[in-house]
């Protein structure tokens, strides 16, 4: 690349390939811009809203931290490699384990919370 071909843009040295990339991006952006109108933007916004809800749920709870840790538990890894087949007696036996009892307790609260939220959500949506 000869020195003359390089361009100084606000202190940043760009060579013709960089400028080609920029032009390509701008032209492609125009394609997107032409696709957008006030109806398509509503659809995009709806997708974003759902993503934001999930993001909010994720950053607003320690459950994500618990899941992050729990999913890496070596005993869980082993179970995924060789799924233990638990019959009725096996389940009853496992229920004596303190961690299983806590897990069931947390899941029970989650079930209650989901039940409550479902009722509330129906109420909210009926008022939109």
């Amino acid at each position, binding site marked *: 690349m000869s020195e003359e071909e390089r361009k100084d843009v606000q202190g940043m040295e760009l060579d013709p390939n960089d400028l080609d990339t920029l032009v390509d991006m701008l032209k492609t952006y125009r394609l997107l811009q032409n696709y957008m109108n006030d109806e398509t*933007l509503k659809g995009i916004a709806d997708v*974003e*809203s759902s993503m934001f809800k999930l993001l*909010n749920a994720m950053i607003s709870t320690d459950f994500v931290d618990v899941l992050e840790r729990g999913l890496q538990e070596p005993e869980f890894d082993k179970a995924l490699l060789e799924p233990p087949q638990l019959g009725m007696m096996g389940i009853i036996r496992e229920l004596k384990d303190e961690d299983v009892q806590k897990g069931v307790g947390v899941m029970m609260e989650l079930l209650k919370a989901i039940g409550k*939220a479902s009722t509330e959500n129906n109420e909210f949506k009926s008022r939109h």
Partner: protein
Amino acid sequence: MTEKVLILGAGYAGTVVANKLAREFRREIARGDLNVTILDKDDMNINQGGFTFLPFGLYSPEDLKRPRKEVISPRINCVFGENGEITGADLENRKVQVKSGDTFSYDYLVIATGSTTDISNIPGLSEDYNTFYTSMDDAFKLKEKIENFEQGRIAISVAQMPVSCPGATVKFAVMLNDYIKFMKTEEMCKNIQISFFWPMEPIGPPEFNKVATKVFEDDNIEINRNFKLAEVDSKNKEIVSQNGDREKYDLLITTPPHKSPQPIIDSGLTDETGWIPVDKFTLQYRGPAGNHDEVYVAGDSGPSSVIKSGIGAHYQSLVVSHNLINDIHGHGTKVSYMGEVGCPYIGAMPTPFTKGQAYIPSWSYGAPPESFEPTRLGWYIYRMYYYIHWDAGLKALF
């Protein structure tokens, strides 16, 4: 002992603070060490920003309202209705009274009761009051008037400053002009004149004024500056300025004067401007009711020197939340509000003859907006924002 945070008002600012605290203090709330309560006189959150667009069919009512509880974390104790309607606040004794007669005490208070409109000091205005500023119903009534309007002068008057989102009426005038060109016959368009009456000389900060003036001139919208509305003579269809100037109109559209909610004024919390004074950086209460470090103010209720906008309310709420987090943890540090505000601008709305164009100029203490031009992507971002407002802005994600 449980520490208590009490938030007055569950509009934009109150909701953001509540959601931010709910997230940060989830363990303290679960253990019963902290209680966060929010009060409001009703249980429906309305996004007022969307009113500007309703007469042009750009949003539907369901886009602009959500039950307050739907957008506030269930970790927050919500009290809405008569039990949440504030009638007085006694900062000295840390007590807030509500309409039902109950009293709420607090360790920390956030005042986010916003602003309200008051047309009582403009004689005659109530006899010819058309506005998009106050409710969805009013915006729809105005839509009907615009649709039935066939010829003459439409006067758009911003009565006095400050108002919530001073730029909203500017945007409205631009959209009205495009809408009329789109909806009316060529003959009618020739016979309709839009005149804009503004209570000050510049329309916002210098760069905002520059763009607004140019777009109005290009659109043939007549600008009347320094026209502070003093009276409406509805019989003769004339508006009268504080200087005694009289101007004819055929349809009058008014942005009404704004003030603090009456219970806030009656509680002696406001200064001579009628708004609540604060430490401009920490947003702690510094006013006629004394200096109160445990009382924060966010949003439209704040001082008259900061323009009232949802964008400003957002930045202020984040600072107030962060300072409450510091206070409750006992960190002894404060973060500062730098005066960040913004006021969306619209250069055109989409019609078969125009492409939508908008921009959101922003500024902060001592740093006016830089030069800007409304863009097409700006239009899409602004339009999209009101759809994601509920899940991004109000949830205090960023």
